[in-house]
Structures are given as C-alpha cells and as structure tokens.
C-alpha cells in the first residue's frame, strides 16, 4: 500500500439530511444573495475609461454642480456580476412555462434581437433627414402594411408606445371623429370584465364609463347593450376574444347596432393572438383596435416594458390618426409630420409622443411576422387555441371552470377558486405553482369570476410541457382542496418567501437612504 498516494480525493456522499443549514453568507450554493449598488459601490469607482476633458472656460451659466449626486460606481467585473446575480432571481420565459393569462408570454426569437441591433436601425437618430433613413422608414411602412392587411382595416397609427397608449389613441380618434361632425357624446360602454385600462382610458378622454352586463355564458348581453345605445353613447370598448377567454359571437351585430346608433366600436386587441391569420377584425365592424406587439408579435416583455401599441383604424377613423406617419411615393418614403400634415391630413388629432414610436419593437415584430408569414400566423392562432382547450379539458374535473359550458375557449382557459378548502384561495395555488417551478397564471382577473385563474399557454409550448404543467396544477389544486397547510406558506423554494405588501404600502420606502449613522458607543 505504501506506493499508493493516500492524499487524493475520495468520493463521499455525506449525509443526505434535509435540515436547512444557515450559511455564513446567506447564500445557498447557486442561490446567491446580492446587496444594493449603494451598499457595494463607491463614488470613486468607475467601470468606464474616459479621455481627459480638454481645458476650457466653462459656459454653464454659473450653474456648475457643487453638491455630490450620490451615485455609486462599480468596475466592469463587479457590474456584470451584480446584474447577473440579480437576473438569477427572476423567472422568465427562457427559463420555463409562463402561462400568464392575457399577457401572451410566448417565446422571444433571438433573430428579432439580432435585426433590431443592426446599426442601420439601432444607430440612427429620429430627426435625421428622411433621405438618410429610407430603410428605417421602410421597416415602419412594411410592418404597417402587414398590420393593416392582417386586420382588414384601412390604416394604422404606429406611434403609440404601449397597449394602454394605443387605447388612448383609438378613443381620441373616436372623439375627434365625433367632434368633427359636431356630435358631443358623453358615454363609453365597457363590459364589466374589461381590463382596467379600458375605463381608465375612457375616463382620461373625458367620457363617463358605464358597464355593459354579461350573460351567464360570459359574453356581452346584446339585448342589454342595444337597450342602452342612444345619442349620448360615443362608443363601446370590447375585448374580443374577451377576458373570459371566449369569442364574442355577436360581435358583428354589436358593431352594427353601435354604428346604427351613431357610435364607434373600439376593440381591445390584447387577445389578437387567438385569431390572427384566421379572422380579420375589420370583418367584424371594428373601428379601432390596438395591437400589443409585445403580445401577439412576440417583442420581449423586458420585465415590464417597453411595449408597443399600434392602432388599426377603419375608414371612418383613419382621417383622425395621430402624427407622424410614413407614406410611400413610388420608391421613396416620406414622414408626415406637423408641417406637411396641414395640407394632406388636416383632421389629425395631433401628436402622442416625441418622434415616431417604438422603432426597436417594429423591427422585432416585423422579423417575427415575416418568419411566420400568412400561413404560419394562422398556425399560431390555431395552436394557441388548441393548447388552451387542452388545458381546460384536462383540468376541468379538478378546478371549476365557470364558462366551460359556453363552448370551446379561445387562447386562454379560465378557472375559479370554487371548491377549495375553507381558507384556501387562488393566491395559495399561485404560490404553490412557484414551488413547482412555474410562473403562476394570471390571478384575480377578470374581476367577474371569483378567485379567477386565467391560464394562457401560447403556441410556443410543446405537448410535453403542457402535460407536466397540467400534472403540477392538478397536484397543487388537490392540495388546496384538501387543505394542505404547507400550501399556505408557499413558496418554500423561491429566492424569497411571501413578501409583506402591507408594510410596503403603509410606510413606503421607495429609494435607498444611508442607514442612520451608528452612534459611537462609549
């Protein structure tokens, strides 16, 4: 034995006991805690090398800054590590299934990122002479053409920055059209199940908001709507497919009735993913609809924006579209801004944003649309609807589905908290799913269903992913029905346990402040 090296590494399994061991750092192997930049950075550290400034006499109007700003700096390696550590505390589509209803969390193709970063788009200034940005204007024009054709509408306003901003654009166009014909109307009708942005938008534009009742099957009550229409109703805002996951069967009749009463139809296009390529909203009599490029057309959500919300418009509303927009004369693109609008577009309700909208989202969305083409987009809608129905039918025996009797769902499946054990709620199911490695579905929306759970799988998930999720949700739902106490304290395995939102709201701490200087002891 003497010739054998005894000092080498011997594999040893150790004791597999589960007790949580507190560590010196608070880290748990790959789960790493990270302090704030204000705690680890210093004013004198920088991760950027700059040339020295030439000596000049300052011309800053005697307003030179003397006070410190209070910005900590980190070197490049520290910076990369700080944000990499933070990133690992986030759930994301790249990591797993993200069935957040009405948010359309589909795969974000990396080709889209690549084209958006081409210097010809990423490195051009919005106020360059139009002759120097013909290709960038071409992207906007081509995307506009796709959006108008896919929706069967007359025109599209590209500048709105997000879905809610697009809603505002549509409602302002309606108001401008009514003003142009000297018709002051004061009411916008919204279904009770509407997303909160709809009433908020209508109210911002100066309208009173009234609810449209729903039928027991979860759709707009056409008779009640017709009864309410009149000379004071400017229009309706309807989501179709609606927030209960159902197609509004009577949409054409709704539109006809609203038009007959002199109003306009706004469609919230948040759920366009269910019908893209199969149904054109223009064929349903819609006058305005925003398209969330970050939903249907897969521009990344980025942890909460930026979004992009172009609005397609009917012939009746097109003249009121906001500035600016792109037109094509033979092979040359022009940008219609304030100066040229007077002659050709005098009815525009004005400008909604500085510059021309979310160019970085236009390139991504166009790449996505071209990749799918007319045939692929139709398949997108069909697979999204198929996946949602598969989830609905696979779980309706364990979770109550309030509208399962209303026919197939569209691209999202809706469940309620009916039948859970006393004291157990939708929130507990959501937190239980976190431990199972999923981002929870949308919870407590729409408001019309008690303890709503809205599951939107999207078309970019495989059957195997759906099967595993169905098994996991079934397991968590059964625990909630049986009153498993461990579910009340879930999540157990996430970077944080449940957070105290009451404390956060009662005594808001919105910025970091230096801790009180410790009083020197003795």
């Amino acid at each position: 034995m003497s010739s054998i090296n005894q000092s080498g590494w011997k594999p040893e399994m150790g004791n597999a006991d589960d007790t949580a061991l507190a560590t010196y750092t608070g880290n748990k192997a790959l789960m790493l805690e990270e302090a704030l930049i204000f705690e680890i950075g210093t004013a004198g550290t920088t991760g950027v090398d700059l040339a020295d400034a030439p000596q000049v006499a300052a011309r800053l109007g005697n307003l030179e800054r003397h006070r410190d700003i209070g910005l900590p700096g980190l070197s490049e390696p520290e910076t990369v590590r700080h944000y990499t550590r933070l990133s690992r505390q986030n759930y994301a589509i790249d990591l797993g299934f993200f069935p957040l209803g009405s948010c359309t969390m589909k795969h974000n193709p990396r080709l889209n990122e690549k084209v958006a970063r081409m210097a010809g788009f990423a490195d051009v200034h919005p106020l360059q002479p139009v002759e120097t940005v013909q290709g960038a204007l071409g992207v906007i024009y081509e995307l506009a053409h796709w959006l108008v054709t896919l929706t069967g509408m007359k025109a599209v306003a590209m500048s709105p920055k997000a879905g809610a901003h697009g809603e505002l654009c549509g409602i302002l166009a309606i108001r401008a059209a009514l003003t142009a014909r000297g018709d002051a109307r004061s009411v916008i009708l919204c279904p009770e199940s509407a997303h909160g942005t709809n009433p908020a938008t209508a109210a911002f534009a100066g309208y009173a908001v009234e609810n449209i009742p729903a039928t027991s099957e979860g759709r707009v009550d056409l008779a009640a709507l017709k009864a309410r229409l009149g000379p004071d109703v400017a229009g309706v805002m309807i989501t179709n497919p609606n927030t209960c996951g159902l197609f509004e069967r009577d949409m054409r009749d709704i539109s006809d009735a609203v038009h007959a009463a002199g109003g306009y139809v706004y469609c919230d296009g948040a759920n366009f993913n269910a019908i893209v390529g199969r149904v054109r909203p223009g064929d349903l009599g819609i006058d305005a609809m925003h398209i969330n490029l970050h939903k249907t057309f897969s521009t990344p959500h980025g942890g909460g924006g930026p979004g992009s919300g172009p609005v397609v418009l009917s012939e009746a509303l097109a003249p009121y579209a906001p500035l600016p927009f792109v037109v094509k004369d033979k092979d040359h693109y022009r940008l219609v801004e304030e100066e040229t609008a007077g002659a050709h577009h005098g009815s525009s309700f004005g400008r909604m944003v500085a510059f021309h909208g979310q160019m970085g989202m236009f390139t991504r969305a166009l790449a996505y649309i071209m990749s799918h083409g007319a045939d692929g987009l139709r398949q997108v809608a069909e697979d999204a609807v198929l996946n949602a129905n598969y989830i609905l039918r696979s779980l309706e025996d364990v979770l109550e589905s309030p509208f399962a009797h209303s026919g197939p769902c569209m691209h999202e499946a809706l469940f309620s908290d009916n039948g859970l054990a006393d004291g157990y709620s939708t929130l507990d199911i959501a937190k239980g799913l976190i431990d199972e490695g999923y981002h929870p579905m949308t919870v407590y929306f729409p408001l019309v269903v008690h303890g709503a759970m809205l599951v939107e799988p999207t078309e970019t998930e495989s059957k195997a992913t759906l099967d595993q999720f169905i098994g996991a949700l079934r397991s968590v739902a059964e625990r909630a029905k049986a009153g498993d106490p461990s579910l009340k304290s879930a999540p157990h395995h996430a970077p944080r346990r449940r957070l105290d939102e009451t404390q956060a709201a009662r005594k808001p701490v919105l910025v970091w402040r230096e801790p009180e200087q410790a009083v020197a002891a003795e």
Partner: protein
Amino acid sequence: MRYLPLTPSDRQAMLAVIGAKSIDDLFVDVPAQAQLDGPIQGLPNHASEMAVERHFSELARQNITASHHPFFLGGGAYKHHIPASVDHIIQRGEFLTAYTPYQPEIAQGTLQMLFEFQTQVARLFGCDVANASMYDGSTACWEAIGMAGRITKRTKALLSSGLHPHYVSVAKTMAQYTGDRLDTALPELSAQTDSLRLLDTIDDETSCVVVQYPDILGRIEDMSAIAAKAHAHGALLIAVVTEPVALGAIKAPGEMGADIVVGEGQSLGVGLQFGGPYVGLFACKEKFVRQMPGRLCGETVDAEGKRGFVLTLSTREQHIRREKATSNICTNSGLCALAFSVHLTLLGEKGLRGLASLNHALAVQAADRLTQISGVELVNDSFFNEFTLKLPKEARPVVRALADRKILGGVSLGRLYSGADALRNGLLVAVTETATSEDVETFATALQEILV
C-alpha cells in the same frame, strides 16, 4: 415553422382529449362569414431565418448611421458611447423575457433593479422619490402636467418657450380632452429665455410652470426665481431634462426648487434607435407620491424577515382604480430602465462627472470652431453639450446638403418648428464624447463650403 413545437400527431392526440374532430371545431363561436378559408391573400408565407435577416440587412444598409459618420444631432435624443456590458446584461433572458414583477418571490432581480433605478433617478434629479419609469420624456412631461392639476386642482399650465416642441405638441393633444389650458410661446433665436414672461404670467390660477433644463436651444438658466414665484402662488414647478448627462456638470433641478422633475433617459444606456423605445424619468417631492402616475417599487421584508422588494401603492393604478386611476399607464419601460441603471452604475459619480466635463469641453471647442465660419453666430451664452447656431441662410437645406456629404450636421429648427420664419436659420448642434476633432473639422469645412 421553427417557433411552433407541436407536431401533427400531438395536435391529433390533443384534439382527441378535447373531444374535437378538427381545429375548426374550436372556432365554432366565430361566425362562418368572419372566418377566412386559408392564409390571408396577398401576404407571403413563412420565411427562413436567413431570408429574414437578409431582408433586414438590405433595409439597414439604406440608412446613414450615427457611429460611422460625423454626427451632431440632439434635440431630445443623444449619441453617447454605451459600454459593451450594458447590452450584454439587458440580453440576459432573465431580464429580457420576464414579465412585470407581479409575483415578487420570483422577480426580485427586476424589483431590486427598479429600486436601484428609482434611487439613481431621484438623486440625479435632486428629488425625494422617483417612479419605475414612463414611456418616454414627452409622455412623462404630459403626465407631470396632469399630476400638477390633481395636486393644485387648477387647470392652467404655463409652458416655457424652451420646452421641446414635440413635448409641447403632446401636451396640446392631451389638453384637448382634459380641459387643461396651456400657455405656450415660440422660442426666439436669442441668448435670453422667456423666463421673464413666465414670471410675469404666474398667478393664482396657475397649476404649474414647465421649464426645460437645459432648454431646446441648449440654454441653461437658474429656475430658482420661477420656483419661488410659483410656490408663492400655490403653483408647482415642473422641470424637464432631455439630456440627463448634463446633470453631471450642472445643478440638479430639485436643488432649485422643482416640485416634479421629468426627463428622457435615452442618453444613458439606451441608444438612438430612431426614436424609441426610450425611457421616461419621473421624480418628485415625497409629499406628492400618491398623485404620481406609473409603477413604484418599494422595500419590505418577506415572511422570514429578509429584505425584499415589491410593486407598491398600486391602488393609484388603472388595474385597481379603473376610471379613477391617476393615469391609464399600464407599463413602464423596464428594459430601458435597466440599461439606464447599468450604464449609470458603470459610470458612478466619478464617471458621470467626467463624462459631463468631457461633453462640455468638446462642445465649447466645437462652438468656437464653427463660429469661425463667416456669418455663423452662436446664439447661446450658456450651454452644456448642445448649442444653437444662427446661419446666414435657412438651415434645413444646409442640413440636407451636409447629409449628401454623409455628414449628419445637427437638427434644423425648421424641422422642429415648421412655418416659424424667425427660427428657420437656426441649427441645433450637439457634441458628445463620440465626436472626434476630425469629425468637427470635417463638419466645419463642409459647412463653410455649403454656406459660401
């Protein structure tokens, strides 16, 4: 189709579970006359990654890019060098493909980043608190005017003539619908701002005074007197910053008494991107926080007592307050806020101060060089990295002639203020750390030739 994982046999198996014969059975609620028989006519079918990339390369080639040519545009969007690590970090899937952090236990990365961002913005602007960002500077400016109306319960907003004309346009559009009254004016090609007009006009009906700093012509002026007069009349001062790098060299608006400070954060981390997406910055005094629009991230603790972050004060927002919300805004500009925050973390106090000095010094040198050209006058007494030249002829054709020589030589005031004859000879020139002395020389030589 490369993004769609279901196979034909998966689809058949799933239809069987659902109890449907074909996919058409799932669309029975769509009236037959509204359904298309097949792919929409007149549009191409799916394309390979290579084909799509080729198409975009073709379009990209038709644009003259900022980094590869002498470039001097500003006017609300600025060219700065963005460190390579910024783009690397924002492309991490955990940031790029995450949603709004509504489930805080698995979104601490985004939430902590937002808390850091809010603190950076508040400190940069000299304010108590900041929100998690808005769409862009122009919409943030409009939201600030709306917020001032809610606080003062007044409707008259006084806008400085130095406010970016697009920001004015956006405010005018929105004011048509809200009943706000805007008092506006065109700027003059002069070193003097219209602060005297503002001081004279503030009265007991004024909700707010909106002042851009530095202003659209690049002028820098102390806002303290306006703040004092506004406060004496129960009105608020809103300061608008379109070039936040300037605040590395000049006083913060909060130091001069601004109640709300908004801005465009594009300069740091975001890039030009032909106008968007950008990131709106929004900060204010603590006492106004409940009237603030947009998302807010706050510190709290979890069930084990560990520090964590959540979205908070959300009862101000549309998803709870519906028609009574402070704004209909439903998103922020999260990924751009991340880029801003990373860039500012890389710079730190030292880096931002150094970057600001460098910008100012190069701009001073460029202004001296360009005003050596016969007939070219400098309008400004004060400026940071952008100034206004008065040319001996209309600036817009000059800019086009420069572009023909592949020089992007600033923004003509004719582009921004169409029809304003008194401004047509004005040229806005921005000079940042990205402009070399050769660029300035090329620009100056060409300008001289064109003006002859």
